[in-house]
């Protein structure tokens, strides 16, 4: 099955780390990206850089900031191939944010429609 592992972080969590810790955590993210189960993913720029777009009555409304005003911010994601939820959980538990006050939301990916 394909899962998205959505990485949520406390704002300021990265800034609280020493340079050495930040580098070590960065390396861990890159190592994870290289695992055979991981098929995709990206790190996102901070929430302050976010722009939210809505279309209402044909008008495009652009506002500053992220869509959801939550305490934790979406910092990135991995797409992974895993046998089941337990296997996906094992991968999610390896993501540094999970043990640094953040959390990982595991969402099954809707399988692509079979070819006609």
């Amino acid at each position, binding site marked *: 099955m394909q899962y998205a592992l959505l990485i949520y972080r406390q704002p300021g969590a990265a800034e609280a780390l020493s340079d050495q810790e930040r580098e070590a955590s960065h390396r861990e993210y890159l190592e994870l990206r290289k695992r055979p189960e991981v098929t995709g993913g990206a790190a996102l720029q901070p929430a302050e850089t976010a722009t939210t777009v809505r279309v209402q009555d044909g008008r495009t409304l652009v506002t500053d900031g992220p869509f959801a005003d939550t305490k934790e911010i979406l910092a990135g994601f991995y797409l992974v191939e895993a046998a089941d939820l*337990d296997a996906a959980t094992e991968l999610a538990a390896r993501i540094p944010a999970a043990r640094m006050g953040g959390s990982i939301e595991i969402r*099954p990916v809707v399988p692509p429609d079979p070819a006609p």
Partner: protein
Amino acid sequence: MPDNPGAWLVTTARHRAIDRLRRDRVLAAKLPLLASGPVAEPPMGETVDETPIPDERLELVFMCCHPALAVEAQVALTLRAVAGLATEEIARAFLVPAETMKRRLTRAKSKIKVAGIPFGIPAAARLPERLGAVLAVVYLIFNQGYSNPALEPGLAAEAISLGRVLAALLPAEPEVLGLLALMLLHDARREARFDGQDLVLLPDQDRSRWDWRQIAGARDLLDRALLDPARRQGPSARGPYALQAAIASLQTEERLDWPQIAALYSELADLTGSAVVRLNGTVAITEAEGPAAALAIVDDLDLPGYQYWHSTRAELLRRLGRPAEARAAYQAALDLAHSLPERRYLERRITETS
């Protein structure tokens, strides 16, 4: 319930060797059965190409009690799929409309399928926490039946059956044996717990109405959980269910060893970090050291939303000759009480305390 639990043991070992692909096929065949009938029945149709093995309950239990499901969904699924209760029966037992229970089961089944919750026994590293979730569900079912016997007489028995299945399948897990012993010990006193509609507390129960054969059986289980030197690997081997069973076992003695009971409660409270456990231990402290010592601990705990905190305070205040405060505390407990026998007991107490 299958008649021969021993047969499951043999087939469990056999089943563990079966490859993942086949399990997935079995799961695919079983999911529709969650809605239509007990899973113990052999799956119908062409989806399973081998003779079904009747011991898949353990895999099924771990799937139903997966922590990715809400606890109420775990309970409902376990009763539906493992114990084979009808959706309407489960709804009645948990005081929710049948339609609500049906939706709860449908949502849970859908999450199992879409999120890929596995049908299988967890990896060894995850087994202790996953087993903890299973035992919690079984004990929750037991307590629901035990505290509302008029509502759903079969629920405590269902939980004990589930406990026996787990004990047969995982005979080396002390906490599995501990939970079964605990449920058997409580259940052995069920005939003496009520006088008509009224709740009878442990010290006032007619001991001749206790099921002494069941108590003896429970003690054997407890010995296996606690005393077998091969299993005793230091203090951590005494898990919360085995400790609770040890307390329940001591409470069936003719002369109660209150200091020992108080010490076990204290160990249990340290282990679980639970204020409720600390509260329950104050009954033993009352007997061992007197009501004043117990009240000091109860007042320290401060659990204003918890019925039994108020009723314990009330009892201690009454014994300390402070009837006005006792009545107020009984009233606070009554305001929080749901079960009819408990309400009747508290109402009686308020009238008696003057």
